[in-house]
């Protein structure tokens, strides 16, 4: 009895991608899940607790989907190592649950043959069994059980059918305490895989009768969505709606978060005397964390779309449609979703590059992700465009300010493609990684799964961003606060601080690109997040509350800067790595300082070059 209390039996879910494995995990554990990372690698570890009919508690882990234990990506390596009990700090599972899409058994049968060689007790869950029944697919479960030698349970994760049976089967395996055989698994060569396929094919013919009414809906939808012309047009339409939603729906929520943070600052201001601690809490922590939290609504709306499209089965199609276009720039089709996310914020974009198998493809994607125009650039672009670009109509239909904004987005996309082309076609020539993926059958997304997934995304972003951002905020606050201005100083306090010193020190370097010392100083706190530069410019030009008084700040800038300087500042912001949290996430995801340093250097170089060309070019045509 003490044994049962001290030692939770460990259950691992293993299966192909798209087998409904995560839906089954969610149905089993509900919201009682812990999402963390496996030690030493940035692969998500999802664990939950379940209680069997006997009252015994068991821990369930959802292992990343794979076609084979012969792992290729970091995700698949985790699955292999946990299954084989090789993962340091992870005991090997007491019972494996192989999760199979009942309508698509052939590939998972081959995986099950591999898993059987591992020698741990196993239960097979035939998931999506309702769809198999609807299609008239006949599975001889008794025969299959005898053939494979493992208990079989049919489940419908989305309707919570068969869950009790599954848990009971797992408990029966635990109670039977079958002798664990030493693992006989070895990485199969091509002949081994062929032999396993023949065996799987034989089992299929003996025990599975093909469906009487196979799914034709997926084929009919694909003939539209994968159409070479309409398919791309529909993809663009979906992206358009998505961006509309990200920017239109998020606005009231973002205003709400800003008001909340301002209110919190006000409360602290009222509660504490005017001293350093108050300044640290209000100007450092609250405004700093608020400047990142404010992007949460946009990130959540973007993720809502991505999760819905993913669960519907569309994302594999989007990768199919985009593969050739991205491939021209040396990027993998799977880089599409990470780069798309980067339009809201590069941090979730970089975190979602984990789906890319090949290390070089993944690094190339990480390196160019911050070139996508994230929403933190928008306040900066809006301020500078408002100050320097006249509100006028060009060619009868286009708004000039809108055109410049569009040009800045386009510059980000084109430069990302150019940089990835350079990386993959010049520096890292080598082989082109194969593009192979299953196109799963379309399914209606399950609301509960979507909600749970979205909640987890939000928590991961807050957690990850918070842990990196807090210390950075304190550092940047220190730089902008100390030392104090001398008695009787007339300029803004930041001018006398370390940030001011850095700004003055780098200003000669930035003179060729048209930056005055005020602009140079604003770049230092602007390292926290791009839009902080707006507030920093407000501080150096002593325009109180710059964010709500952008009109005042814009007219100040228009009076103080030349047009050439304004345009150079825009060009700088297209490229510059003005976001320490992004660099911190790159460090975490790559486990090395090498990549954030490379990213910083190449982006600063591009930013300087672009601003130099723009400034000198603008002066040459008399805009100086």
């Amino acid at each position: 009895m003490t044994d049962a209390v001290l030692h939770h039996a460990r259950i691992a879910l293993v299966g192909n991608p798209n087998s409904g494995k995560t839906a089954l995990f969610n149905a089993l554990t509900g919201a009682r899940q812990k999402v963390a990372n496996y030690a030493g690698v940035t692969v998500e570890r999802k664990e939950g607790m379940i209680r069997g009919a006997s009252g015994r508690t068991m821990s369930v882990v959802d292992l990343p989907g794979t076609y084979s234990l012969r792992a290729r990506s970091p995700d698949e390596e985790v699955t292999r190592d946990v299954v084989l009990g090789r993962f340091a700090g992870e005991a090997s599972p007491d019972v494996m649950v192989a999760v199979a899409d009942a309508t698509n058994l052939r590939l998972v049968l081959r995986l099950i043959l591999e898993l059987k060689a591992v020698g741990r007790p196993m239960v097979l869950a035939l998931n999506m069994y309702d769809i198999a029944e609807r299609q008239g697919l006949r599975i001889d479960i008794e025969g299959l059980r005898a053939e494979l030698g493992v208990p079989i349970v049919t489940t419908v994760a989305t309707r919570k059918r068969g869950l009790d049976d599954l848990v009971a089967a797992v408990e029966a395996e635990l109670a039977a305490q079958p002798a664990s055989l030493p693992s006989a698994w070895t990485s199969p060569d091509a002949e081994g895989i062929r032999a396993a396929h023949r065996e799987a094919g034989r089992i299929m013919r003996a025990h599975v009768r093909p469906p009487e009414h196979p799914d034709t809906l997926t084929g009919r939808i694909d003939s539209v969505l994968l159409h070479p012309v309409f398919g791309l047009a529909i993809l663009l339409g979906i992206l358009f709606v998505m961006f509309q939603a990200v920017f239109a729906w998020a606005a009231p929520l973002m205003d709400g978060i800003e008001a909340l943070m301002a209110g919190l600052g006000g409360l602290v201001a009222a509660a504490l005397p005017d001293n350093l601690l108050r300044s640290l809490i209000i100007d450092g922590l609250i405004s700093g964390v608020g400047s990142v939290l404010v992007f949460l609504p946009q990130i959540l709306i973007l993720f809502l779309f991505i999760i819905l499209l993913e669960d519907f089965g569309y994302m594999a199609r989007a990768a199919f449609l985009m593969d050739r276009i991205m491939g021209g720039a040396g990027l993998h089709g799977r880089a599409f979703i990470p780069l798309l996310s980067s339009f809201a914020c590069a941090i979730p974009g970089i975190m979602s590059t984990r789906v890319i198998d090949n290390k070089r493809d993944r690094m190339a994607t990480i390196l160019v992700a911050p070139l996508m125009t994230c929403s933190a650039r928008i306040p900066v672009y809006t301020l500078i465009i408002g100050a320097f670009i006249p509100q006028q109509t060009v060619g009868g239909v286009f708004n000039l300010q809108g055109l410049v904004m569009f040009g800045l987005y386009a510059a980000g996309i084109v430069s990302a493609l150019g940089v990835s082309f350079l990386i993959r076609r010049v520096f890292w020539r080598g082989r082109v990684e194969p593009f192979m993926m299953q196109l799963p059958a379309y399914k209606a997304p399950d609301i509960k799964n979507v909600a749970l997934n979205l909640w987890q995304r939000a928590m991961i972003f807050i957690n990850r961003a918070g842990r990196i951002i807090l210390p950075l905020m304190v550092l940047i606050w220190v730089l902008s606060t100390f030392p104090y201005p001398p008695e009787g100083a007339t300029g803004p306090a930041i001018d006398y601080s370390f940030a001011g010193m850095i700004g003055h020190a780098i200003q000669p370097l930035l003179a060729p690109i048209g930056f005055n010392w005020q602009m140079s100083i604003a770049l230092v706190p602007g390292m926290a997040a791009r839009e902080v530069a707006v507030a920093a410019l407000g501080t150096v030009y002593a325009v109180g509350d710059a964010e709500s008084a952008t009109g005042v700040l814009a007219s100040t800038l228009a009076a103080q800067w030349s047009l050439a300087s304004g345009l150079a500042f825009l060009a700088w912001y297209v490229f510059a790595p003005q976001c320490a949290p992004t660099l911190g996430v790159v460090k975490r995801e790559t486990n090395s300082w090498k990549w954030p340093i490379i990213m910083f250097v190449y982006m600063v170089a591009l930013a300087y070059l672009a601003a130099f060309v723009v400034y000198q070019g603008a002066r040459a045509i008399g805009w100086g």
Partner: protein
Amino acid sequence: MSDSFPLSQARVGARGVIVQVGDHGDHDEHAIELERRLLEFGLVEGARIEVLHEGGIKRDPIALRVDEAVVALRRREAASLMVRADDAA
């Protein structure tokens, strides 16, 4: 084998049976790895395939029905698969 052709040349609607995966003369590490990955995706000798869709640029990539599943791959990788046209089709 005279009527077999590389899958990379197939157009939408082509049906057949895979008769060879990988170039068995090629012992380069990359070719061996590609062969294993194709096999793991169910692209194995004897599998029935049908080309369902093509991409817009250079008709690449392609989507195939492979037995019960649908798989997308580039023509570049499809060149490693020899297919015999289905007489019944």
